């Protein structure tokens, strides 16, 4: 699962792979349009629905947070 998430990030936001901080959106590593693309790809890749309430900066603060979000949704 992690590998697939990283693959998607690599396609839409390569910088996110090397980012070590906690604030991707505020630091301009990822913008809201890239988030839309990433969310769409994640939903399709994992056949999950990422409700709008999860599409917040906190869940996209770094790659680990995105992986954690997907893991949580897969468990539901």
């Amino acid at each position, binding site marked *: 699962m992690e590998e697939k998430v990283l693959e998607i990030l690599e396609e839409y936001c390569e910088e996110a792979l090397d980012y070590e901080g906690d604030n991707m959106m505020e630091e301009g590593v990822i913008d809201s349009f890239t988030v839309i693309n990433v969310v769409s790809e994640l939903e399709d890749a994992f056949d999950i629905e990422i409700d709008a309430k999860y599409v*917040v900066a906190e869940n996209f603060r770094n790659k680990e947070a995105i992986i954690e979000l997907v893991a949580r949704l897969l468990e539901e």
Partner: protein
Amino acid sequence: METDFRRVVIIGYGKATGEILKYTADRRADYGYTPEFIEHEPHALSVTKQICEERGIPFASMPDKRELGGYLDEIQEKTLIVSASNNFLFPAVLVERENITIINFHNALLPDYPGRNAPSWVIYRGEVQTGITWHYVTAGVDEGNIIIQKSCEIGPDTKAYELTETLMDLAYEGFCECFDGVLQENAVARPQGFSPERRMYRSSEIPGDGFLDVKEPPEKLYCLLRSVDYGKSGIFPPLQMEVSGKRAEILRYRKVAPEKKKEGADMLYLPFADGELLKIKYRLL
């Protein structure tokens, strides 16, 4: 550089607004105006507050339109209001004040597609080109004189959010080109020519009336799906369709190659004329 404007108030949200905010802040030393930002429509992914904090720009959140109207009404100094990705309609009494100048960017090539959600309507109507317009604001919606326009192509797979992103970039580009002229009050602006067929798009309108008729050609369905696709922003409710006599809500869609077809629950594959498939994932209501 000289300007009589003492304040520049930016109202809006999103990527273009953030870039315009930074640009305006960075140019203040050239002119001596005081910039400020008002958030009228909070957005979950907005970074404008952070930009304000980094650049020492006053930030205020005023989601209530009466509060915002009241605040703007009290402005006494000569002020430029920059309306960027902003749906607040400025009251006529404010627009007509001598000390207030308002410029707005509209995400279409005015006089075409005035009103709301222009990126959706240009995709839905099959346009191959669109753009942005910076214009002076008058009492009428999207009617003011045009300061600058920038255009772009619409591709056969362009989704509403992708087009919006392109338009945001053009909006920023256009703003940088016209800002000095607006501040120095020597921008050459031309009146719009209105045709009798001019049609205002309202926020309550949804392309296809929000319904996907699977009996229509997949090319047309794909166009509708793309036209309302803003990701999770909730600009439009999910499209609905009928499956085996039951109402369903569309969760997502994708154009896929035939070899990528995977059978699954609540999934529909419709063939395009070129052999590719329109994959639609739905949920029965």
